[in-house]
């Protein structure tokens, strides 16, 4: 299909984008890559009257190191994140997640800000930013504000982003010595979205697990942290039985939705435990160097 008629305006600065948002209100949508929005528009499930393209805003692009964090501009593409030596070296969990998004065409166009603002329940980034405890910055007509990743994902396709705001950047802490990471996913065989995707960041102190952060995407209406699993790991010496035991808790209280074709809720919950175990083992292997 082809979309219904719409106006296209290009913002050159964040300030201009915010002004345009004010001008058009809910008749407008921000275009931040478009790999989710344009298909919906082609199916006429979404018919915005105006698209405000953020693609030419230079200040929203690029990755830089700031203290113990990486600051990633909202319009940085998935491929730029995946291929960035800085991300690969300083925050490889994010690079590993970015490299598994969709396919190359999607990674060349899709952006981290677009993905996080859309909050598709099966997107890959949400699990990674939850496990990384990233911070997301939004800019509206007034002050900018920063939201913790754990507070960002509100519900299905719903985030803490307010009307009139532009997601401007994502701040992720760099990995510390003794940390191991992994992002593993079962891709939907057609769309490439995660049927189940597990992000894991472990901190070891000798052979003891000092901190564990895990998050899962794809299973339910939004990505969530796996607190039960984390608790079962922290303070333990991580051998395979301990990891297996902890991973089994991934399914406890985990809200799951049926994929109409490729994975029932039951199967997704099962996969969540298997992939949690595998992600922990992989992170452990990396933490031990």
């Amino acid at each position: 299909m082809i979309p219904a008629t719409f106006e296209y305006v290009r913002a050159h600065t964040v300030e201009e984008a915010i002004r345009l948002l004010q001008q058009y209100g809910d008749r407008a949508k921000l275009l931040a890559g478009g790999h989710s929005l344009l298909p919906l528009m082609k199916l006429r499930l979404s018919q915005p009257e105006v698209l405000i393209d953020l693609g030419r805003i230079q200040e929203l692009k690029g990755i830089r190191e700031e203290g113990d964090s990486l600051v990633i501009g909202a319009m940085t593409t998935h491929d730029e994140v995946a291929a960035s030596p800085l991300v690969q070296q300083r925050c490889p969990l994010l690079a590993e997640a970015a490299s598994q998004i969709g396919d190359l065409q999607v990674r060349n166009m899709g952006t981290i800000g677009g993905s996080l603002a859309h909050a598709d329940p099966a997107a890959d980034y949400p699990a990674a930013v939850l496990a990384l405890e990233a911070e997301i910055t939004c800019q509206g007509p007034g002050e900018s504000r920063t939201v913790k990743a754990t507070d960002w994902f509100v519900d299905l396709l719903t985030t803490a982003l307010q009307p009139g705001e532009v997601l401007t950047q994502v701040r992720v802490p760099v990995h510390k010595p003794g940390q191991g990471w992994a992002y593993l996913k079962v891709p939907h065989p057609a769309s490439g979205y995660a049927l189940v995707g597990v992000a894991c960041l472990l901190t070891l102190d000798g052979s003891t697990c000092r901190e564990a952060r895990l998050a899962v995407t794809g299973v339910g209406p939004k990505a969530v942290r796996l607190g039960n699993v984390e608790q079962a790991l922290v303070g333990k010496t991580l051998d395979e039985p301990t990891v297996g035991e902890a991973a089994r808790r991934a399914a406890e209280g985990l809200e799951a939705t049926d994929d109409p074709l490729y994975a029932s809720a039951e199967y997704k919950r099962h996969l969540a435990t298997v992939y949690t175990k595998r992600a922990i083992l992989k992170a452990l292997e990396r933490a031990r160097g």
Partner: protein
Amino acid sequence: MAVTQIFGARVRRREDPRLITGRATYTDDLVLPDLCYAVFVRSPHAHARIRRIDTSRAKAAPGVIDVLTAADLEGKVGSIPTAWLIPNADLKTPPHPPLAKDKVRYVGDAVAVVIARTRGEAYDAAALVEVDYDVLPAVMDMEHALLGEVLVHDDVPHNRAFLWTLKGGDYEAAVKEPGVRTLKQRMTNQRLIPTAMEPRAVLAQYNPGAADLVVWSTTQNPHILRLLLSATTGIPEHRIRVIAPEVGGGFGSKIPHYPEEAVVAHLAQRLGRPVKWTETRRENYQATTHGRDHVTDLEVAFRDDGTVVGLRVRTLANLGAYLSTAAPGVPTYLYGLMLSGAYKIPHISCEVVGVFTNTTPVDAYRGAGRPEACYVVERAMDLVARELGMDPVEVRRKNLIRKEEFPYTVATGLVYDSGDYERALHRVLEILDYAKFRTDQAQARQQGRYLGVGFSTYVEVCGLGPSKVVGSTGFQGGLWESALVRMHPTGKVTVLTGTSPHGQGEETTFAQIVAQELGVSLEDVEVLHGDTDAIQWGWGTYGSRTTPVGGTAVYLAARRVVEKAKRIVAHQLEVSPDDLLFEGGRFYVRGAPDRGMTIQQAALQAYLAWNLPEGMEPGLEAQANWDPTNFVFPFGTHACVVEVDPETGQVRILRYIAVDDCGRVINPLIVDGQVHGGVVQGIAQALWEGAVYDPNGNLLTGSLSDYAFPKASWFPAFETDRTETPTPVNPMGAKGVGETGTIAATPAVVNAVMDALSPFGIRHLDMPLWPEKVWQAIRQARGGGA
């Protein structure tokens, strides 16, 4: 004299540079002055009566030229015909109105067409067409359909389109013989969506001055389309020109004559301006034909030593809501006749019931009937092996037709032309290192890893086909093929073929045949196809017929050109034609090699016509219409090695080995390409692809983000090899290879997965082997625990 062997050379496809650099011209690329655009309004219901259609709002929308419904086409565009009227099967051919009249029968059935100045305006207006439906219960399941509670067509009781039977030998008697035992298995061969890279498109232009119609269409068979368009539009055949420009794949789904073609052609005439329609991918999935969709009850009769004595096959074949062009022939003749596979099975009994349901019509899809047959036979071999605790390779060896037994008449009546089945099997076992694999497999199992190997010692029928034979099956056409080879005064050559390649590479292959026969360079040969005004006649490209049938016509026409050139040279050199030798494009006198003339010089003489033999017509061209005496039967063995993850049910392909024999090979590179593509499609059916409807008839796999179309990264590098057993059916010895991969691969993969799952006692799972299905089966086998 240096002779270059062009026949058999790894020549790169001359089509590819334009295809991969975006310089090819497809139907949708064409723009004509005053062009307008058609968009079809399609039913959102699988089954409903149309109470009323209100087009007034749509007609008033900006840019709209007209909006038509079935009532407007009454008496102008006829019912879409079926061209394979299988005999003795009580075949029902209910009307197929080009726009639904009274009733819609599947989601996607077209009810109206909007014509506007731009495609966007046409879409906008299509949303304004108001159709008042009286929704009826949909009938989706074949067994349910046969109860006849809900009728897709009011005049087809029990939704039964046909009942076709085939008996070879006496199965009922054979099972009563002492020492014969049986096993049963129900299996489905799921519905697939062909997914050609280019969706369908039609552009039609009517010239009122000359009263003629030009139709550009994404068709695999332009002459057949012209013939059928003359029937549906009433415009006489000689006033219609059909052009198949670049066509981006078809896999059978571009064989049928579709309603949109008839409607768009009519619109061009009606409106007096050119009209174009291009389907979206969603329309492509809903309204372009699907493939396969069988449910089969198999019974195999066999002896303790592994000898298979008989098969009884009862198949329900889903035909969808209407009978598509070739639909009745696909699950009958192209299926039942191949149920002996590569084996000597003396007793075969087959019954096929064609069923109407509220689904997209089903027609040929790469392999068309033969993959379904191969699947049944190759699964049967593994089931017998499992039952007897025998090696599946041994069971196959026990039953294979031996090379000295050709030509071999199987129980279904086909006469297999040539083969050496054991040689291909042997080669696969060698590449695989079979004994070592079994050792590795046993070791892996001890470590909780589940490896499996599956074989498919397939044979297929292609090179369709001898006209007399296909006529006896009710096919409403001949399947001979034509070619014209024209050498121009400068010695350059144009080849006009009646086949219509759309990705297969015959522009290269046929140039190789002609360059070889005429002794000219490859660059001097141009191959044209796909235009009914330029090409004398053609039946098109499908059924792996293009090279064995169309290529043979090309070969024969080239030979005739050489013969004529030889007579001209003999005349001018004043020798007998018998005294001339022909080598590397030059004729010379036997014993006096200096006295000679090149074929290019002969061509110039043919056109100058100053000095030709008495009674010879000027010019240098020849046409050949080749009608084969038999089909051809390519064969081979494929083996697949998989690992199943017992925790998740995921299947990983570790190795895929294909040893194929398609007779004499003209271009090994193209043969490899065909094998690779075919294998990918075959594996995809086993593991991923499957069209799924919900109970209300909505296609859940209605887009590329839902339908598990395979990606290149999912496959290992294929290990391919070949044997070459020429066919006696045509002078080149070439068989077809366009469908072998698709036919062979599917059972090889399923057999491999079942082999991997044998420690769990799992004997059969239906395709596609989606991980959850495999995981559930393992879980069940383990007694519920994960």
